[in-house]
C-alpha cells in the first residue's frame, strides 16, 4: 500500500528547485517557529495578561474567519429548480449557448493553481464539462475532487485553432500537474464550457 507520506514528489520538483528559499521557510516553520512562539506566549501572558487576552481574542477572530474559507456554497446562490443533464448539453450544445443552466455531477478535476475551474462528470460514461469561473470571484478548493456538486452558469462555445488548443491543453496539464503529450492535439478544436456563477459542493 502506498501511504500519502511515501509518495514521491514528481511534479513540484521543478518548481521547488527554482525556489530553494521555500525549503528554508518550511524548515523554520516546522522546527524553530513553534519554540519561539511558545516562549513569546509564555513571556507575554505572564507580563501583560490583559494584552495577551486581547491578542488571544484577535487570534480567535482570525481563526474563525479563516475557518469559513471552506464554505460549501460558492458565488451567487443557485436559482434554477431542476438541473439539466450534461449529456443533453453536450448532445445539442448550440441550443444551450448563452442560456443559464444548472448542472449536477461529480467533481473530477479542479484547477490546482487558482481554483478557477473544475470539471463536472456527466450523467453518461466518459462525459465531463468544464465549469470556468472568474479568477478570485470563486475559488474552488482541491478537496472538492470526488465530491458531488451543483453548478449554475451560462453555456459558452470555445473555438480554438490548433495552436490555441495546444496552449490550452498544455496550460491545463500544468495546472493539474499532469503530463502533456502534444500529439493528442491534432487540429482546431471546438469545446463547450459553462461560465459558472454559483455552485454548491457537497460533503466539504
Amino acid at each position, binding site marked *: 500500500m*502506498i501511504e500519502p507520506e511515501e509518495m*514521491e514528489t514528481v511534479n513540484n520538483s521543478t518548481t521547488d528547485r527554482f525556489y530553494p528559499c521555500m525549503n528554508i521557510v518550511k524548515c523554520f516553520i516546522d522546527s524553530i517557529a513553534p519554540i519561539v512562539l511558545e516562549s513569546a506566549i509564555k513571556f507575554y501572558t505572564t507580563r501583560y495578561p490583559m494584552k495577551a487576552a486581547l491578542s488571544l481574542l484577535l487570534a480567535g477572530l482570525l481563526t474563525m474567519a479563516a475557518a469559513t*474559507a471552506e464554505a460549501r456554497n460558492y458565488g451567487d446562490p443557485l436559482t434554477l429548480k431542476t438541473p439539466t443533464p450534461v449529456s443533453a448539453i453536450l448532445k445539442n450544445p448550440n441550443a444551450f449557448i448563452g442560456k443559464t443552466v444548472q448542472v449536477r455531477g461529480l467533481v*473530477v478535476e479542479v484547477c490546482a493553481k487558482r481554483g478557477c475551474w473544475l470539471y463536472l462528470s456527466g450523467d453518461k460514461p466518459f462525459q465531463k464539462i468544464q465549469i470556468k469561473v472568474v479568477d478570485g470571484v470563486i475559488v474552488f478548493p482541491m478537496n472538492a475532487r470526488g465530491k458531488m456538486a451543483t453548478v449554475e452558469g451560462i453555456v459558452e462555445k470555445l473555438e480554438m485553432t490548433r495552436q490555441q488548443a495546444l496552449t490550452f491543453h498544455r496550460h491545463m496539464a500544468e495546472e493539474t500537474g499532469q503530463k502533456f503529450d502534444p500529439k493528442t492535439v491534432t487540429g482546431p478544436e471546438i469545446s463547450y464550457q459553462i461560465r459558472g456563477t454559483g455552485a454548491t459542493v457537497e460533503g466539504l
Partner: protein
Amino acid sequence: MNWRRLNYALHRDIGYISIGLTLLYAVSGLAVNHISDWNPSYRIETVQTRIEPLPAYLDRAEEAIPTILKRLGEKIEYENSFRPDPESIRIFLKGRSILANLATGDVVYDRAVPRPLLYELNALHLNRPKKAWTLVADLYAVALALLGVTGLFMFRERSWLISRGFWLIAAGVAIPLVGVLLL
C-alpha cells in the same frame, strides 16, 4: 494637538495596525505573482505504479474497483469513481485519487498537499472567506489610502520642492503612471 502631530500619530498607528495584513499580502502577493512558475497553494504529488491489467472489466470498470484497491493494498473504501475514457477509471479516496488503466495496469496516484502557511495566506489574499474578509480587506484598503495621504505630509522642509520627500513621492507616483502609459 496641532495637525502635524495628529498626522504623524495617524501615520504611525495606522502603520502599526497594518503590519500584519501588509506582511500577509506581501508574502502571498509574491507567491501568487509567480503563479505561472509554480503552484503557490498546493504541492501536487504523484507516484506511478503498476498492477496486473484487468481487461475483462473494461465494459464494467466500476466492478473492478475492489480488485484494483486490493491489488494496491488499499482498504476497499472509496468516495467516488469516474471513467474519463473507455480504458481508465479514476477512484477518489479520501485526500487522494487513483487513475488506473485497466488495459495496461498503469496506476497513477495523486494528491494535492496544501503548502504550510502559504495556503492559508493565499486563501485570505484571494478572499476565499468572502463576506467577513471582504470587510477586513476594505478596511485595510482604507488604511493604506490613509497611510499614503498622511505620508504626504510627513516631511517638514519649508522648501518642499527641493526636499527628498517630494522627489521620492514623485518617483512613487511615476511608477504606476508609467505602467498605465505602457498599457
